[in-house]
């Protein structure tokens, strides 16, 4: 127990010493997660909206695949990414392995299904009377679509925040695709894994607090958007 308390005290000291190493890792993690979530939002929200609002063959298969990919271990994504990006792999010529771009790509692949599937759920949850009301008030197709999106906006925002949460907290893809290079691709999650393996428990705990703070903030945001949407 003392071990834990000492670690906790050291962690607080590190946080309030404004150690540039720790804050650099935190800033980099947030930047990578922000970039990947932005990309996943640009792709996932319109895709989710289209899948939810259109009838087409194979729709249920796509939804099943998206649901399955939610449970995909992050290390598997890292492994697949490595298989494509390593020097002898098909995309090796891009020279992206162990770069921030590779980490962002990995996090994008992880948060994309989260954002897409939650957008589908958000659109399905819109009251069917919203469509009828938009129609009888003379809205064209584009305005009808915008209206439905607008009605689902809080749930869609919650989807984006959940996608960000998935990206910022993942360790497998960032480790395998980014290589955990100091001042370059090291993120909070990979740094925690490294520091704990080195026996630097308090350092890992300090980063853990940051990660927990980010996770808590994300959950509060998701909850806020869910309440707003009701």
């Amino acid at each position, binding site marked *: 127990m003392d071990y834990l308390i000492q670690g906790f005290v050291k962690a607080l000291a590190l946080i309030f010493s404004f150690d540039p190493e720790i804050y650099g890792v935190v800033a980099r993690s947030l930047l990578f997660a922000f970039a990947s979530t932005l990309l996943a939002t640009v792709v996932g929200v319109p895709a989710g909206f289209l899948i939810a609002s259109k009838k087409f063959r194979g729709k249920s298969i796509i939804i099943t695949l998206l649901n399955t990919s939610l449970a995909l271990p992050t290390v598997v994504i890292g492994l697949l990414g490595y298989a494509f990006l390593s020097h002898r792999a098909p995309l090796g010529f891009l020279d992206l392995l162990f770069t921030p771009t590779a980490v962002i790509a990995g996090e994008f692949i992880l948060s994309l299904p989260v954002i897409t599937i939650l957008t589908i759920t958000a659109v399905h949850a819109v009251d069917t009377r919203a469509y*009828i*009301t938009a129609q*009888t008030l*003379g*809205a064209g197709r584009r*305005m009808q679509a915008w209206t439905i999106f*607008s*009605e689902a906006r809080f749930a869609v925002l919650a989807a984006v925040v959940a996608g960000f949460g998935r990206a910022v907290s993942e360790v497998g893809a960032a480790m395998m695709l980014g290589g955990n290079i100091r001042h370059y691709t090291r993120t909070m999650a990979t740094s925690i894994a490294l520091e704990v393996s080195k026996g630097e428990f308090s350092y890992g705990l300090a980063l853990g607090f940051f990660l927990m703070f980010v996770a808590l903030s994300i959950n509060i945001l998701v909850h806020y958007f869910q309440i707003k949407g009701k």
Partner: protein
Amino acid sequence: MDTTMHLELKNIKHYYDTKSVLSIDLLQIEKGKIYSLVGPNGCGKTTLLHIMGVILAPTGGELFFEGKKIEHSGSRLIAARRRVTVVPQSPYMFDTTVRANVEYGLKARGIAKKERENRVDEVLNLLKLTAFAKRRARNLSGGETQLIALARGIILEPAILLLDEITANLDARHVDTIETIIRDINRRRGTTIIMTTHKLSQAYTLADQVFSLFNGRIVESGMYNLFKGAFRFTNQEPLFDTGKIAIHIAQRHEDDKAGHISIKPEDIIVSKEQLHSSARNLFSGTIVTIIQQGEAVHLEVDAQEHFRVQITPSSFHEMGLTLGTRVFLIFKASSVHVL
């Protein structure tokens, strides 16, 4: 196709899965008139209103607007929808302000911002809702929501306004306001109005013509005194038990079988004294509504069940009938139509 008609429905059929919910051979709506559509719950009123509002494509049949057939695809569909507006019984409010909700249809029509603002102010003022403009539409009471839905419809100045039970569950003050507005927009703008209602008194006081819908079919006007119940036998006499009263009928039916009956208002004799006659049905009750319309006086009599009766104005005056007068209703078993 009759080009003088505002709206015409021909051979309209609609099914939910395999269940037929609507079957109308011909329904013609004249321009500038107010129509009421009455009928029991589940008879197809809302489905019919949605078909007339071009937001539901019928399974079969044709719909003509000012003589032109309405197609349920392409840009003509949107154009048709912009001439006909449905105000539903339980309106959906978009998750924004009252002003934005009322303005929605004008935006859809590409009306300029300044004109939109003026028209919203005007309609909110008409409905005495100006104070609500900036409030969240979803935070309003049922009556206020219904008024906003009406405002959202009438601001568009549609050629045809379809109102689905819009005064149901409203207090008397809101009902009066809405009825006044319905009359006003019909008179001032010549808007054709088709409204569904459960209230026969409202149907007759507001409408130029009343249609009855039963089991998805338009039935002869005059199919009132529509009762739901079960067939019974007492001393070998066939009866129809509504749960409140037992009505003698002429035809024998399977015991305990559920069904509907109707009695034409003009087949019921009204008397202030108890008459002894060959008619099998005699009920006493009090007059609760009096509506004079043209050459007929319609009475609504509360005799445990509400009966609608039609008499001439001269009979009405000679008998000295007023609200609350106790009367006897007499009709033959053969006047009861089993549906």
